[in-house]
């Protein structure tokens, strides 16, 4: 527990930073004492990532003072930060894609054994030092990033939305390991939009709003509302959805998958998705959910199995085929979904020009209307809209959803759409998804945050080891039940 009379490991005050006209930070401050885990909180675009980048020398501040163990410090580069004991895990994976794991570690002089130890500890099995980074899944990369940070024996660990792309089991491990490090005296700055994680891990919270530190809080039961109020400058009710009576699905399903298999991961995935329904998908990391979404979106051909849309059999050989059949896909990986140096408008309007017959003059009025509607619905922060890469991570994520919102959807395939999105916007996305469904769309919704299932879905299928092992109704979908199912435990129950 940090208190002000101890010497802080890190004490930053009055940090400011502008990007052209965008003032990301105006007056941010933060302190971390040994053994303390401080949550850095704020809405999307509040400046959290910018703050972390400044503290670790990846960006130069316009103003501000940083003390490390009470001494003035000028952190000029990430390498220098590391030498001063400040070790970050940035929100974007910071590993070199074309080098293998060993070379990546050698680059930062990090001992390989220690990293492998931490990787194991964090629950990733079978990682080899000669694996190419570009071949590894996102979750593994995040874990590797963290393991690398841990292995370099940090005094202060800065974790920027480390867990956003992780499935529940891995999140647990991360929280456990980080807590243990803190107990050994390491200071931790922890950024996440998930209150459950913060409640479990953090001792205190520093809240940023519009680039300014608006206050510090002690984490204790019931602090959530107060915290949200500080983050947003307004109250937000966090009530649950009234799931009501279970839906009655009748007639022809919008989407029917029968016996889908993708060698070697997916073995047998079958489900039916009806118009007006939001069907959740629950799975731990690497159970085949990625491949299933790839098949549904036309990215990959299944080894066997059939797809039907509105009763007609479908064979997709290109995403365009899936889109023509009304299936719109929001991928989990933003790198895949965004034109980084193009504007928000162009990103959202992209599908309007996709087909050969749309190559002619743009219908700009039609387009502007739809795009503006989507921006408004999702409350995308358009301060830096000239280039999507200048948006904060959460706002980038919203753009990927906005694209299909503007285009209009029949069947929406959402792969972890709330990754890195702040509480307020999440609370707007669930009703949005519901609203789409009520208007007749069918939604397939994979999320790594189990608490979202009852908030957004009617039913959920559980995928374990490449098979659909269970189907849970929203009314019964407690986190515990989902977790059991996700670990494949309910199947064993049934067998015994």
């Amino acid at each position: 527990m940090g208190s002000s009379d101890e010497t802080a490991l890190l004490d930053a005050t009055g940090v400011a930073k502008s990007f052209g006209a965008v003032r990301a930070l105006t007056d941010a401050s933060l302190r971390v004492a040994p053994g303390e885990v401080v949550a850095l909180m704020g809405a999307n675009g509040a400046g959290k990532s910018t703050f972390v980048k400044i503290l670790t020398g990846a960006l130069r501040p316009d103003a501000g003072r940083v003390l490390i163990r009470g001494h003035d410090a000028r952190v000029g580069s990430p390498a220098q930060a590391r030498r001063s004991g400040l070790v970050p895990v940035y929100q974007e994976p910071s590993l070199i894609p074309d080098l293998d794991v060993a070379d990546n570690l050698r680059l930062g002089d990090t001992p390989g054994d220690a990293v492998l130890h931490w990787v194991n500890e964090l629950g990733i099995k079978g990682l080899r030092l000669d694996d190419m980074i570009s071949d590894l899944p996102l979750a593994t990369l995040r874990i590797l990033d963290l393991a690398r940070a841990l292995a370099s024996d940090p005094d202060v660990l800065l974790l920027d939305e480390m867990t956003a792309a992780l499935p529940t089991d891995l999140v647990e491990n991360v929280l456990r390991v980080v807590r243990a490090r803190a107990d050994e005296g390491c200071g931790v700055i922890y950024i996440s939009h998930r209150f459950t994680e913060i409640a479990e891990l953090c001792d205190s919270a520093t809240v940023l709003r519009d680039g300014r530190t608006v206050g510090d809080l002690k984490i204790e039961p019931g602090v959530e509302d107060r915290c949200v109020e500080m983050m947003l400058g307004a109250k937000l009710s966090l009530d649950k959805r009234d799931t009501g009576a279970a839906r009655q699905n009748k007639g022809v399903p919008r989407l029917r998958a029968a016996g889908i298999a993708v060698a070697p991961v997916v073995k047998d995935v079958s489900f039916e998705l009806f118009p007006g329904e939001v069907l959740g998908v629950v799975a731990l990391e690497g159970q085949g959910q990625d491949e299933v979404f790839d098949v549904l979106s036309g990215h990959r051909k299944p080894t066997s199995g059939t797809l039907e849309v509105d009763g007609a059999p479908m064979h997709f050989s290109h995403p365009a085929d899936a889109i023509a059949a009304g299936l719109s896909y929001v991928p989990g990986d933003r790198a895949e979904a965004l034109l980084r140096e193009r504007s928000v408008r162009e990103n959202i309007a992209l599908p309007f020009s996709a087909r050969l017959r749309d190559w002619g003059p743009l219908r700009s009025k039609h387009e502007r209307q739809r795009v503006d509607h989507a921006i408004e619905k999702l409350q995308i922060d358009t301060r830096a809209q000239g280039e999507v890469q200048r948006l904060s991570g959460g706002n980038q994520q919203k753009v990927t959803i906005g694209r299909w919102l503007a285009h209009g959807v029949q069947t929406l395939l959402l792969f972890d759409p709330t990754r890195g999105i702040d509480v307020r916007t999440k609370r707007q996305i669930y009703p949005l998804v519901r609203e789409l469904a009520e208007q007749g769309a069918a939604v397939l919704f994979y999320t790594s945050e189990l608490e979202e299932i009852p908030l957004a879905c009617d039913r959920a299928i559980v995928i374990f080891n490449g098979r659909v092992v269970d189907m849970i109704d929203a009314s019964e979908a407690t986190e515990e039940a989902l977790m059991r199912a996700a670990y494949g435990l309910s199947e064993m129950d049934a067998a015994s």
Partner: protein
Amino acid sequence: MSRLLRKNAWMLGLLALLCVLLVITKLIQPTFGANGLESLARAALPFAFATAAMAIVVIVGGIDLSIASMMAVCGVTAAVLMQSMGPVPAVLITLIVGLAMGALNGALIVLTRVPDIVVTLAMLFVWEGVALLILTSPGGTVATSLRTLISGAMIPGVPNALIFMGVAVALVWVPIRRAKLGLSIYAVGSDELAAFRSGVNVARTKIIAYGLAGVLSAMGGLSLIMLTGIGEPVPGPYLLASVAAVVLGGVVLGGGRGGLLGPIIAVFILRIIRTILTLAAVDPNVTTIVEGVIMVAVVMLGAVLTYRGAQR
């Protein structure tokens, strides 16, 4: 083992292609032998150095359009110097000149933040002009000791030119590839931001990579005058040829992937194709067509194979 094989599949494929081409040469011209190999190796020398230079800057994520011009500068510098001093100091000075030119290219890229292709396009003209200022028309002299270095074969069947090339490139590249610097070069080429965040000094790495390209260009310029015996101020056709060989050799434009061996094998392939076409007395105009077709076809084949692989 299979990993190693897969990693180097492209290079092994190129090597196999080279062997096939050698066999074809032998079939067309049964007298083709040690002499033929030797002149092949000599013809490949300037291309190999230009290609190695280009490969390094492409790996670091850039491109250097001024390589042929730097070769011309180094060629005339050495040829002029050797009129008044011994070969060893002249060669050393030339290598330093090459290093300085390359490093200047790199420094300009880093400092001005102008994209690599623009800076080196401008420097293409600057170095070309400098070469003409050093020597307005072909001239100068080259020590015979240097010229004999790349002729004949000390080890039967292995031309001296090949040994010279191997030793020179290896001296520059192997220690760097082994050291962390080599890793940094690949890292910067692969993902500059991630490299910076992993603690790599991006600016220094780039300048060094361009400097290395300068040194290799200097070797290319030296090999030119070793072949011809005089310095020529007009840049030869090495720029586009080196880009083609680099890509053919499996280095990805954009950076981070590939090595030097593949591109150098590609140089030999391109050279031997010309030999074959000459031996077969193909109409020279058709030769141009055939060269173009082969270049495109090999890369197409590679693209199709890797695409298939990715599609699984």
